[in-house]
């Protein structure tokens, strides 16, 4: 049983949701069976994350009508995400019980027809709305009239469901708007006997039991988190009894528990799952009270350490308290504290960090190291709708950043330091290849973001096609390698004489190198070439974008009433240490 509250808790709690939330989401719910209560679960779970969640629930089993009718309430509702939850009983009809009443080839034909029906619905939906569509795959029923002989059957009932799922996934593999949800994984994790309760099915056509509906809602929250870009980016780890068993200062290099034998294997597996997250773009860092020399020796030399020095973007290993270290770590990595996850076996440290940084996801791990891996596996906050090349290389880039910071600290002045970096900026207009990353930056960047306007990929696509907009991005390279696309700007051409800077943002990891001045010089010079006389810009302050507060005055914009203006008289020079390439 997952650690979840009861369905009645969510139903009643949803009535008490009040107040203004940080973010908003509109969810459409379509299903082939009773999902009463799911709306309330999503609303409560969203409110716990400071998201105001408005849900449109289509009438019972009316998903086809809602999608096919151009004037349906679903379309009027303008959902951001629509969940279409279907099940094999409804889709397969009589064939669900009597798959072997038809021939092998008819079974194949049948699945083909069913997939086409769904595809037709999805195509209509995508044509009509910008909403993301999440469609559940079918769970594979365990019963077959053939019993254990099922696996000897050609194109068996099980194969039919698998084939349906496979085709559904394949059809939308590269789609930006359609996602197939692995419902069968949810069933595998929790068990068919728990998820599907015949009594509830007969009584009210429930195909996800009331006990497990909250856990299912938790699964759907992954899409909400990913859609809103409130994904956690960094895991901050303690060392003793977290990455290894025992205390290095007391048990010594040879005494700590880390290796193929229990209980050391639990720590190794925990490190492996962390490494797998790191490889897909989650940053790792250390916040530990320890003698630096003792701990670093383990990290560098212990034969069973899975995580190595190069996997950590920051290592705060000292005798300062965890909060002080956390503050320094946040500054060093240059990351929003709300993107952090903190893992520490000591409840006092956890409470202390939680009390100062309520926005950090502090994971309550028990003193049983065998549970660590599953705790990490169950965190839904790392969910993303897309993994870009930048994500995959993020870990390496942060490690590189650490080396750069060390170089900066050993160089006498900023100009010398910057000129040693061999900075090169490639500025280009956004195209289909750069769009996913640009969209990701627009949704996620908080700190160096002038207006914090959030646009979905489809919004940006429209701007790219609109001659009144320039959507540009900047790729930054230095002597340590390529940082990828780390800057975005959107210009709205108000008229022939005046451009407006709608969006200007940069990833925090390249802040402090005057890259922004280079990009701004490019914008001004381009405007000059178009005979534009002024550029207007707004700075919209949020709780997080203080780093960009002085950007406009630093670029010689002047304040006019509530807005900032730059009067273009001539081209301006790029900073000397920046090489600019325009594609």
């Amino acid at each position, binding site marked *: 049983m997952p650690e979840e509250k009861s369905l*009645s808790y969510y139903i009643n709690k949803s009535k008490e949701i009040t107040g203004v939330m940080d973010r908003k989401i509109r969810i459409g719910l379509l299903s082939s069976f009773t999902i009463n209560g799911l709306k309330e679960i999503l609303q409560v779970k969203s409110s716990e994350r400071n998201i105001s969640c408005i849900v449109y629930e289509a009438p019972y089993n009316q998903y086809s009508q809602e999608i096919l009718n151009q004037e349906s309430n679903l379309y009027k509702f303008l959902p951001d995400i629509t969940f279409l939850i279907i099940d094999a009983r409804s889709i397969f009809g009589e064939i669900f019980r009597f798959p072997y009443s038809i021939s092998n080839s008819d079974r194949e034909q049948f699945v083909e027809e069913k997939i086409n029906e769904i595809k037709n619905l999805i195509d209509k939906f995508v044509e009509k709305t910008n909403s993301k569509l999440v469609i559940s795959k079918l769970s594979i029923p365990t019963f077959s009239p053939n019993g254990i002989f099922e696996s000897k059957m050609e194109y068996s009932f099980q194969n039919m469901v698998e084939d349906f799922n496979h085709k559904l996934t394949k059809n939308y593999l590269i789609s930006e708007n359609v996602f197939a949800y692995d419902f069968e994984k949810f069933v595998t994790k929790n068990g068919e006997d728990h998820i599907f309760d015949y009594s*509830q099915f007969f009584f009210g056509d429930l195909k996800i039991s009331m006990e497990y509906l909250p856990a299912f809602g938790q699964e759907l929250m992954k899409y909400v988190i990913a859609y809103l870009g409130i994904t956690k980016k960094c895991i901050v780890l303690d060392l003793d009894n977290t990455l290894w068993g025992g205390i290095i200062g007391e048990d010594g290099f040879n005494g700590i528990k880390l290796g193929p034998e229990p209980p050391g294997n639990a720590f190794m597996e925990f490190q492996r799952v962390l490494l797998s997250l790191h490889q897909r773009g989650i940053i790792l860092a250390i916040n530990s009270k320890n003698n630096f020399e003792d701990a670093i020796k383990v990290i560098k030399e212990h034969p069973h350490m899975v995580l190595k020095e190069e996997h950590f973007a920051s290592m705060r290993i000292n005798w300062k308290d965890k909060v002080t270290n956390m503050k320094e770590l946040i500054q060093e990595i240059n990351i929003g504290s709300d993107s952090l996850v903190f893992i520490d076996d000591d409840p006092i440290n956890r409470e202390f960090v939680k009390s100062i940084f309520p926005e950090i996801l502090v994971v309550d791990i028990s003193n049983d190291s065998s549970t660590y891996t599953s705790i990490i596996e169950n965190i839904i906050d790392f969910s993303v709708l897309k993994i870009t090349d930048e994500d995959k290389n993020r870990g390496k880039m942060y490690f590189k950043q650490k080396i750069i910071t060390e170089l900066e600290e050993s160089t006498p002045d900023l100009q010398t330091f910057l000129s040693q970096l061999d900075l090169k900026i490639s500025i280009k207009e956004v195209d289909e290849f750069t769009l996913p990353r640009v969209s990701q930056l627009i949704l996620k960047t908080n700190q160096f973001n002038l207006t914090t306007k959030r646009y979905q990929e489809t919004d940006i696509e429209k701007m790219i096609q609109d001659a009144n907009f320039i959507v540009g991005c900047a790729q930054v390279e230095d002597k340590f390698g390529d940082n990828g696309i780390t800057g975005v700007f959107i210009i709205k051409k108000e008229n022939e004489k005046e451009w407006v800077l709608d969006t200007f943002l940069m990833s925090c990891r390249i802040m402090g190198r005057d890259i922004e001045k280079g990009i701004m010089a490019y914008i001004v010079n381009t405007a000059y070439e178009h005979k534009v006389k002024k550029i207007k810009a707004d700075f919209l302050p949020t709780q997080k974008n203080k780093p960009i507060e002085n950007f406009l005055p630093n670029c010689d914009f002047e304040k006019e009433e509530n807005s900032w203006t730059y009067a273009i008289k001539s081209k301006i020079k790029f900073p000397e240490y920046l090489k600019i390439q325009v594609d």
Partner: protein
Amino acid sequence: MSEKLYQIISKVMKIDIADITDELGPETIENWTSFNGYVLLNELETGFMVKFTINEAMDVKNIADIKRHLRNKEINVDE
């Protein structure tokens, strides 16, 4: 055990424990919709570790019916 029963009814139906009587049902409890009535049975099943048969579930019209079915499962709901 009746205390536990009343707590679950109170939690699911959002009514004060003091207001719960045997006669209450869908007509007298605002939150007792057909779905919520089923949620109540489900949470009683979890709370008392019992299972109602489909006939029992369909038979429930008020609190007294719930008590009767629980008694049949050897749950003491009168103390």
